[in-house]
């Protein structure tokens, strides 16, 4: 018989590990961690404001047709348009559209997405959007518009967002 077997056979008493100190430690640690844990997950949206810069005429010629989408958030809806250095004005004028808000209800974000998706499909290299809200438009509406304009169904529409005030 092996030594271990003999020890078991001789009726070696089973000893319980004293878990009380470990429990005490847990009881101190858990309230401490619960106090400092955050239940809100703050995320970020990268945005910039327009700044003056020196023009780079002829420095880098556009490889593909690229437009910058403009969304003006007005009290009565959205005004979508596009500007570009590489696309003719007549062509850009076709993209000028108004998405009306009916009876002060919520802003028609789905119609805004539809218009921006069409623009993106026509000019796939485009990635910049300028949002120009009216002074009375609340911040929540601006963020909602940014959300739908940046990504739709996990596809990038216009991920680079520039926030600008109205001039004049």
């Amino acid at each position, binding site marked *: 018989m092996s030594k271990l077997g003999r020890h078991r056979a001789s009726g070696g008493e089973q000893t319980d590990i004293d*878990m*009380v100190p*470990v*429990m005490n430690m*847990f*009881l101190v*640690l*858990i309230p401490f*961690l*619960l106090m*400092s*844990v*955050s239940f*809100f*997950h*703050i*995320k*970020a*949206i*990268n*945005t*910039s*404001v*327009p*700044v003056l810069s020196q023009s780079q005429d002829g420095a880098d010629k556009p490889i593909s047709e690229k437009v910058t989408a403009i969304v003006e958030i007005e009290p009565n809806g959205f005004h979508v348009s596009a500007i570009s250095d590489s696309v003719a004005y007549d062509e850009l004028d076709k993209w000028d559209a108004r998405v009306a808000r009916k009876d002060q209800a919520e802003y028609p974000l789905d119609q805004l997405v539809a218009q921006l998706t069409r623009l993106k499909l026509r000019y796939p290299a485009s990635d910049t959007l300028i949002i120009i*809200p*009216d*002074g*009375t*438009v*609340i*911040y*929540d509406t*601006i*963020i*909602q518009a*940014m*959300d739908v304009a*940046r*990504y739709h169904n996990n596809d990038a529409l216009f991920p680079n967002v520039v*926030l600008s*005030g109205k001039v004049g």
Partner: protein
Amino acid sequence: MAFGKLKKHTKDFVPPKLQITSMMDMFTIILIFLLFSFSNKPETMSLHKDMKLPESTADLDYRENINLVLSQTSLELGGKVIGTVKDGTIIGLDPKNLKTSTLYERLRSTRESTDKLAGDSNTKRHILFLCDKRLPFKTINCVVKAAAMAGYPNFQFGVLKK
């Protein structure tokens, strides 16, 4: 006799052994969960009780930046109150003369000191901007403009994850 019975019963009483193994298991799981929820946060920040951040589908973590908080009652820069908000107007932030504001002055001095330390003025600087979702754009625009003029044109808008 009734008392005699009670005496006998007390004598036989064996204190029950507390089974703490299951409780230990539970505590271990809670502890691991809490430690994990700690690990992926750049820093903790405190927000006003009356502050309501907008919700967004954005999934980008914020960086360690200069914190600019605009609530319905105050404007804070790096945790210090630098202005009060009344009826959507920031006291001490004149939209026509932003360069005289405390916000502009403080941000400009911060930028100059960080530029000196870094030795490069072209590094991309960000401001983490936390703003109450009920504020109108005319209020926000003053703050954003003043920050851009002070050399911080790039922002990270803080939002709550949907």
